[in-house]
């Protein structure tokens, strides 16, 4: 799997390259500025891009803007955005086109290599990887005005993991329950929130995220 990586801090870039290579990713390019990233994304056609939000030369949200532009040129281009801070504002912008293949994680998440690599793979496959902090922000906001359509604590937990983009299998192993139990929970959740059922994993996640964001 070919990766384009954009990160301006040498130590972090180097560490990410090592980690991705250790998990059999091919590094197509590891760049440090916005313009370089734009060029690499256009020319190298990677399977997934791992991008830091803040890049030189402007040190504003250049990475994010490059990623969004590249996705407009090539809809569904998988992009995993890394940042020192997560903002719902950015999450919204990333999810706005509804195409999937989006990840948005705190940089801290690279501490857990297995989970991080899982997130990269998920995004590359067209799935979603939302940082737990984004989800918990959405939930605290939600729980103030509505008790989440009467979800049980268990269902709520499943929904949090689902909103992060985890598959049923991953949720099952994390919560130490069977996949069938997870499937039952998810259909309950969709029923209670009156969301249209969908077989497609990613549509399902986007629907939940959109539901949480509404309001």
């Amino acid at each position, binding site marked *: 799997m070919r990766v384009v990586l954009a990160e301006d801090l040498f130590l972090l870039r180097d560490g990410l390259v090592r980690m991705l290579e250790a998990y059999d990713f091919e590094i197509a390019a590891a760049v440090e500025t916005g313009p370089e990233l734009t060029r690499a994304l256009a020319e190298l056609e990677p399977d997934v891009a791992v991008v830091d*939000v*803040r890049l030189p030369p402007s*040190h*504003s*949200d250049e990475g994010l803007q490059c990623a969004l532009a590249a996705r407009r040129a090539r809809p569904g281009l998988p992009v995993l955005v890394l*940042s*020192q*801070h997560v*903002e*719902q*504002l950015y999450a919204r912008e990333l999810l706005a086109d509804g195409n999937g293949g989006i990840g948005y994680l705190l940089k*801290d998440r690279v*501490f857990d290599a297995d989970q991080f690599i899982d997130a990269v793979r998920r995004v590359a496959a067209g799935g979603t990887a939302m940082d737990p902090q984004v989800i918990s*922000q959405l939930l*605290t*906001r939600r729980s*103030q*005005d509505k008790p989440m359509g009467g979800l049980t604590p268990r269902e709520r937990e499943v929904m949090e993991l689902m909103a992060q983009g985890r598959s049923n299998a991953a949720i099952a192993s994390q919560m130490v329950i069977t996949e069938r139990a997870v499937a039952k929970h998810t259909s309950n959740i969709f029923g209670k929130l009156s969301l249209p059922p969908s077989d497609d994993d990613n549509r399902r996640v986007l629907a939940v995220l959109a539901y949480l964001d509404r*309001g």
Partner: protein
Amino acid sequence: MDAKRGRIGSALLAAGRGLVLSFAAIAGSCTLFVLALVSIVMIPLGIGLVTTPYILQAVRKHANQRRLLAVTWSDVRIPVPYRPLPKDVRSGFTGQVERTTLMLKDPATWRDMRWMVVDMTAGYVVAVLAAALMVYPVEGFVLAAGLWRVFRDDQYWYGFVPVDSQATGLAAAALGAAVFALGVLVSERLLRAHFVLARSVLAPTQEQELALRIDRLTETRHEAVDTAASELRRIERDLHDGAQARLVAMGMNLGTVEALIEKDPAQAKQLLAMARESSAEALTELRDLVRGIHPPVLAERGLGDAVKALALRLPIPCDVDVELTGRADAPVESAAYFAVSEALTNAAKHSGADRIWVDLRHGEGALKVSVTDNGRGGASVGAGSGLSGIERRLGTFDGIMAVSSPAGGPTMVTMEIPCELS
């Protein structure tokens, strides 16, 4: 026709206002001037020390009332030049003495005295004239209508017209009409002249204005330095107790791991997990700290989006409306951001509102922000409240804040910071 009626209407209004002003000049200025003079003369006897501050306060109120009328009636702006009394004036007799001295030392006090003399003489005449030009013609018309009969034997002078017959009565009416026409033309201008006269006596000279400005700058600079110093202290403490301590613990754990890795791999692994956890916690703490110093979204996106991101973090639905064509200077953006943040936190915590509106725009050389909620109201800018913190923060930039929060709500906090967008 309508335009003409409008002119007559506004001239009549000006005449009415002239009447009010002439009354204020005689009843207000004259009385207060005499009282103030007596009180000041009585200072050597001791009584004056007690009474003077009260009377001078009343004088200031009276002058401020005129300033307000000047701006609302004739759009004449007269600056308020009084030096603020220090907040820590002692109570009781010594406090009164202190207040008396401070007020007597303020040049604005003596300008008030001078103004009252001018107001009850020249100011009065101008104001009365504005009224008289519209009232006097009435007598002329009444004379023409039949009042002339009373003066058939004994001549009566209306202006320069000796009235003793219907013909001379009509002449009086003609003169009245002429005066009336003159009144329509000039009464508004006379009213304005009254205020301009007041301004020429009341307004501080350029030198005094500069002195006031220096006072204000000294005050805000003190506050800015204090705020900056206490911010630095807070950051130092947070780093010291937080990230720094965690890094020490991590280093220690790693050292132990080094020693244990061969002897007791299981425990070494456990310590490694702890070290990783510490590093994650240190990161979280640093992130919160950074957000408090300069929020990353503000650096990346500017004020509009930073406020939108802030609104998304609130537990209450919040509508943000932004109309900015560029970005303000970084320090201004930062001050505005933290001011909005404080206002939003206040609204979310104390107002009991279920909806908040934020409006951000730039116009007339200033950044204008309003934060409105539909809560229970009753917020005030007291000492120690978050709102007074906002006022201090904005003061450094000559920014101002106003709070409108009647009991029962809604609460509206408005702020203005003079700045240019780039």
